């Protein structure tokens, strides 16, 4: 099987600091590939490099059978690379519905339309509503996005990412800052989502990682030191020493 997303020897340095030091990994169709590692390992930097909000120094990115290394952030998104952020990133003054409808708008025809009211495009609104239902936000559709609780905002981000039907989802700590109960619910939602959308998941919540991930890579100081099934990684001495040892598994 060919991977839907492949990183080949990616590098990124800030001066002498090698934040990403020759990272190669692949995400296969139907798979949740988790990326774990201690704070400062360079996980978020790597997500930025893949999504295109940060330029890589060298290396290659293959996505959906094409080389996307030279594409810009919006071009990569338009090609089907979806993403959520570690720090919640929304259109705060738009309604919840409009946040998702705008994301749907990006995938449905040209947005260089100047006269017809976008808020009354029933097709966009219907797509947005069904994404909101999927993430239990249908009741909040008319509220202002900036006024939602933190947990609801995390859900909204996922709704915005999935309504665009991405070919791969990059999830940067979707569980960050949400309660225990919510994270259990979110894990369920993500495991449903996994069947349709392969994902690269950065997460500190080990319980969620080992429930969701088909494969796990351990990133330490910008280098991947182990990749394998959750069981293999759990058994890997180097990975344990670097990271997993801190937690009871």
């Amino acid at each position: 099987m060919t991977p839907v997303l492949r990183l080949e020897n990616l590098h990124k340095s800030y001066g002498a600091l090698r934040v990403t030091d020759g990272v190669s990994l692949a995400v296969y169709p139907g798979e949740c590939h988790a990326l774990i590692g201690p704070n400062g390992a360079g996980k978020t930097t790597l997500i930025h490099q893949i999504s295109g909000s940060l330029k890589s120094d060298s290396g290659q990115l293959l996505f959906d059978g094409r080389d996307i290394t030279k594409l810009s952030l919006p071009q990569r998104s338009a090609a089907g690379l979806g993403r959520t952020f570690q720090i919640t990133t929304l259109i705060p003054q738009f309604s919840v519905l409009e946040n998702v409808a705008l994301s749907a708008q990006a995938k449905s025809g040209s947005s260089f339309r100047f006269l017809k009211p976008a808020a009354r495009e029933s097709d966009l609104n219907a797509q947005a509503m069904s994404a909101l239902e999927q993430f239990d936000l249908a009741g909040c559709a008319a509220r202002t996005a900036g006024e939602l609780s933190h947990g609801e905002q995390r859900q909204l981000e996922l709704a915005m990412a999935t309504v665009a039907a991405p070919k791969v989802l990059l999830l940067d700590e979707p569980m960050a800052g949400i309660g225990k109960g919510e994270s259990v619910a979110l894990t369920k939602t993500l495991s449903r989502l996994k069947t349709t959308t392969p994902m690269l998941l950065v997460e500190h919540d080990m319980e969620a990682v080992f429930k969701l991930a088909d494969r796990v890579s351990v990133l330490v100081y910008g280098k991947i030191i182990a990749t394998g099934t959750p069981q293999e990684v759990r058994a890997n001495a180097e990975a344990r020493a670097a990271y997993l040892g801190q937690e009871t598994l």
Partner: protein
Amino acid sequence: MLATGSHVISNRQNRSIALGVGILLVLALTPYWAGAFGGSYVVSLVMKAMIFAIASLSLNLLIGYGGLVSFGHAAFLGLGSYVTGIAITEGMTDVIFILPMVMAVSGLFALVTGAISLRTSGVYFIMITLAFGQMLFFTLSSLAHYGGDDGLTLWDAATFFGTAFFQYDGGLFYAVLIILALCWGFVSLLSGARFGRVLRAAKQNKLRVETMGFNTFHYQLLAYVIAGMIAGVAGFLFACQAEFVSPAISTWQRSGDLIIMVVLGGMATRNGPLLGALFFVLVEEALSLVLHEWRLIFGPLLVLIVLFANGGLAGLLRRLGVEE
């Protein structure tokens, strides 16, 4: 809940459309009510305010909906009026030729300066647009062949299919009013359409909008070009009204006035630019008639409105119940 939400929104929308149409109607009747206040002098003042309203509507597209604080918007007033002035001086008087030329030149200037300015943001964007505005001001001042510093008197008036519709003692008042109404309607629709939605979203969170797959630069640049073209038309109307063009129309103070009109009226609102421009021009004039030191009052008045009327005059009206 969704139904109620959109109901409230559309109700508010209806009221603001009604307010805008109401203002335009009062303006349309100016020649009738002006008699009570000083006749043709008031008509000419209202005409000036309406032309400023056209320019403010276009600037609201940038500042209000796009979050792009341009401090060089008067450059387009200068371009519009000089293209008009030069065309008439060279014997090309029909609006049918002048207006497309005005829009083409303003649009081109906006395309080039916008493409450069939009590489920056925040204070740098303000400074670079100011620099382009000043550049144009000095260029116009040095057009020795067309009057230089002193400006250029137009010995012929603009014709419209051979009629005097765009002449001061012809139908210019209604020409301005029609263009104002068209611009008001166009900017209202634009802000709610797909294009405007991307623009408004990019103002709040550019990274998010780019992550959705929109190249915000393209949308902002097009908004800059559209705004430049509309302001160019306002410049054209100033030339028609005064039958005289001068570099003074494109000074940075004028760009500042336009920003004040937009902020005063209420940014990112449908009627804010209308209210702001009318208030600015009319109150300035009224104060200067009553008081020699009118600036002592006008300045603090603007500051107070901006400070205490959240959302400018449009916001004030909304809270007073006119719009909601």
